[in-house]
């Protein structure tokens, strides 16, 4: 164990904590930008520090390919190679292989795939993944898990979950630097609560420094998504960090934080910047639209970042998708937004005003009150009253629907009866 996790404040399931890692002391909830190949696209480490970035994610698959974990090790580890003084997290490499490579095949041994360099068959085992991550030297390393898409059904999900548990033992055994690097286990099990439960118990038994909720953010419907997160956060230990992998959209981060998660990562903010989309309190702003060409306002009048303080939408519009500077400025703004969101989540929980923060967030994003149903359901479970953000109740309907209007649903919130809610929701579809 090479971390300390101290909860500083709570609101129901949500918590704000201090996560002390070998290279940096972090405040959670936090968002981790993805620096796939040892850099966040278009930003210097100096700028990342300035906007308050605490942990960066590196992709083991890409880094092993180029420049190679041996080289990184020889040159003193990834922190030194990139000159990033704060914390780093590496994933196991498994996800990239499954999603990027043709004919990747998963067996008990590991993940077999075709080398992208010369087409030869290669194998990534749990042992190798951990060895590579040991050489890269990140503060947090991820176990190699058997990832399946949540859109798949059938026995494959169960197979993957049990294999993930068998592989965690191999990962633990292979881990050479437990006093400097924290090995997180990843909860799998698809959308099946029984499988998820087995996986959580299995991982918790191994007493790992932290836990991730994996296998989500892959196209499943939002309603299933939040329920899996809710189930896992309820079952995972209180005193250890919980990391929801691949999340994502600011709304998702707020909901998951309300449900008790602490850490997130996603390529979304930087990727969407390169397509000309900015993150704003109202949601998104597409700078490529013609309407932006003459709009002299900043991207977000409430944002204090260098881009919003100095540049107009019109100017950014003239740059986006044409000039590298456009990508850079938008990436800067989007990451600034995400770092501010992280800070706001932490501060509002510590200062005892988390529900107010959530309400304000939802009101900005859904000024007409059309908060999605899944968010309402999740907030109910999180015990956060967002009635003020939701639209006035619809006119009474005849029949069954009259019994289950939103107002009635909220009146039943004390029941905390998930299955009743879901069966009601099912009937409404």
């Amino acid at each position, binding site marked *: 164990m090479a971390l300390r996790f101290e909860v500083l404040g709570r609101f129901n399931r949500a918590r704000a904590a201090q996560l002390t890692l070998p290279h940096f002391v972090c405040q959670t909830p936090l968002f981790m930008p993805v620096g796939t190949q040892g850099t966040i696209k278009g930003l210097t480490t100096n*700028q990342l520090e300035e906007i308050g970035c605490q942990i960066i994610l590196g992709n083991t698959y890409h880094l092993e390919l180029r420049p190679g974990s041996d080289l990184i090790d020889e*040159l003193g580890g990834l922190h030194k190679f990139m000159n990033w003084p704060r914390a780093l997290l590496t994933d196991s490499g498994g996800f990239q292989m499954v999603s990027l490579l043709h004919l990747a095949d998963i067996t008990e041994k590991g993940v077999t795939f075709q080398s992208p360099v010369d087409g030869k068959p290669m194998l990534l085992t749990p042992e190798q993944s951990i060895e590579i991550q040991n050489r890269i030297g990140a503060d947090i390393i991820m176990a190699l898990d058997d990832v399946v898409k949540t859109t798949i059904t059938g026995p494959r999900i169960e197979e993957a979950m049990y294999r993930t548990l068998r592989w965690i033992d191999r990962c633990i055994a292979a881990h050479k630097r437990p006093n400097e690097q924290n090995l997180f286990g990843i909860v799998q099990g698809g959308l099946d609560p029984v499988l998820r439960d087995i996986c959580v118990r299995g991982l918790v038994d191994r007493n790992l420094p932290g836990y991730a909720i994996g296998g989500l953010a892959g196209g499943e419907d939002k309603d299933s998504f939040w329920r899996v997160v809710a189930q896992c956060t309820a079952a995972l230990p209180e005193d250890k960090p919980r990391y929801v992998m691949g999340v994502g959209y600011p709304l998702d981060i707020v909901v998951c934080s309300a449900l008790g998660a602490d850490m997130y990562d996603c390529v979304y903010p930087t990727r969407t910047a390169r397509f000309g989309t900015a993150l704003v309190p109202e949601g998104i702003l597409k700078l490529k639209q013609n309407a932006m060409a003459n709009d002299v306002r900043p991207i977000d009048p409430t944002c204090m970042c260098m881009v919003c303080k100095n540049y107009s939408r019109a100017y950014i519009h*003239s740059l986006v998708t044409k000039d590298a500077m456009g990508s850079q400025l938008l990436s800067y703004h989007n990451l600034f937004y995400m770092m501010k969101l992280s800070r706001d989540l932490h501060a509002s929980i510590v200062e005892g005003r988390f529900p107010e923060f959530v309400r304000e967030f939802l009101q900005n994003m859904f000024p007409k009150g059309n908060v999605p149903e899944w968010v309402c359901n999740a907030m109910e479970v999180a015990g956060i009253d967002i009635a003020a953000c939701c639209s006035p109740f619809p006119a009474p309907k005849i029949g069954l629907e009259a019994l289950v209007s939103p107002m009635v649903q909220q009146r039943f919130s004390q029941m905390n009866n998930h299955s009743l809610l879901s069966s009601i929701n099912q009937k409404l579809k």
Partner: protein
Amino acid sequence: MLSILNNLANRALAKTGEREAEAMKFGIKAWRNGGRERVGSLDLVNNNAAIETPALVLTTRKGLPTYISPDLLPSVASPDSCLLQASPLHFLDSASPKTISNIGGLHQLVSLHGYSFTAAPRDSILCLPEYESTNKMGASFETTCGRRLIKPAEYMELVSALNPNLWATLADEVPAWVSEKRNKTSVDRTVRWLDECIALDKVGSRNVLGAIVGGSSIEQRVRCAEEVTRRNVSGYWLGGFGLGETMEERPALLCAVTDILPTERPRQISGLDLPEEVLQGVASGIDLFDSTYIYHLTLGGYALTFPLNRNERRISDEGNDIKINLKATIYRKDTSPIIDDCRCYTCQNHTRAYINHLINVHEMLAQILLEIHNTHHYLGFFRAIREAIKEGEFDLFHENFVEIRHDHMTAVAANS
């Protein structure tokens, strides 16, 4: 031999207008009897520090550097890095002149109030003069919006909206190999457009650089220069260079022009990119250099390494290199900075190995770091030039540099 001339003010009466008109002051601080090179001080009277010349004008895209984001710009050897190029033609697509005016001009648009802009139509990267399509109505350019014919009116609309500190009039630039007749026409047109541009200028030609062309014909160059000096302009912009004339024929062409121009007005040139070309320009009395050298180096993965201290000849082979190619595998594990005692952000924070990796995985950070270093280094080169002129040793500096380059090329040839 040093002699200092007094500053000569170049003021016109201030006109009342919507925007405050800015006069420009240029004075010679150091020169050598018998030489054309000079150190000058360009004061653009906008509350920013005066710029010492010969100076490098940094390339921009729509007013910002290609890769160096505005918050990183101050660290790149301020105050030297204060003079930026801007081509009005970058804004053909967007933003519209009206929007630019509404925002308050170029400085406000890119939020670089501490910097000065000099605008010329030609931008050797994105807006290349397309002489075959140019006609009496306007100059043709290959731009990012396709081939466009730019008339003086359209050009001046953009210049007025942008309100740069200095701007060059529209020119018909032709390459060195055109016929005499075509060349002569280019001079006629350029002079005519100069008059048109000045007539369209709302703030009263206080900061206008008269464009001088003439290809590779000394006669036409002289004719054009004589015409332009008869107009009321604040300085001169030498166009049509870097378009096919040889290194050998260039000095004569340059001097033919500068010998006619008044000493106390600044001269800017586009198209002299390489260090040796810059030195040719300095030797003939040019003050401002709009060079795309850094841009091309950066894109190619090159970092400048030539010694700036003109007395220093490094022992190692590599110390005499002009530049290194960080794509090369020899840098894979090189944990040294590009240059050991370089004070730029890149050298203070990153290694050759890291930049090599970034280039290989096609990450934008590679270009950002290289542009920072190369800009810093090239600005240092210009500083060294100014020091040499002040000490009356520019000829020696020039010779020394060419020799290093020659030795390096010989060594490279021998090794290959």
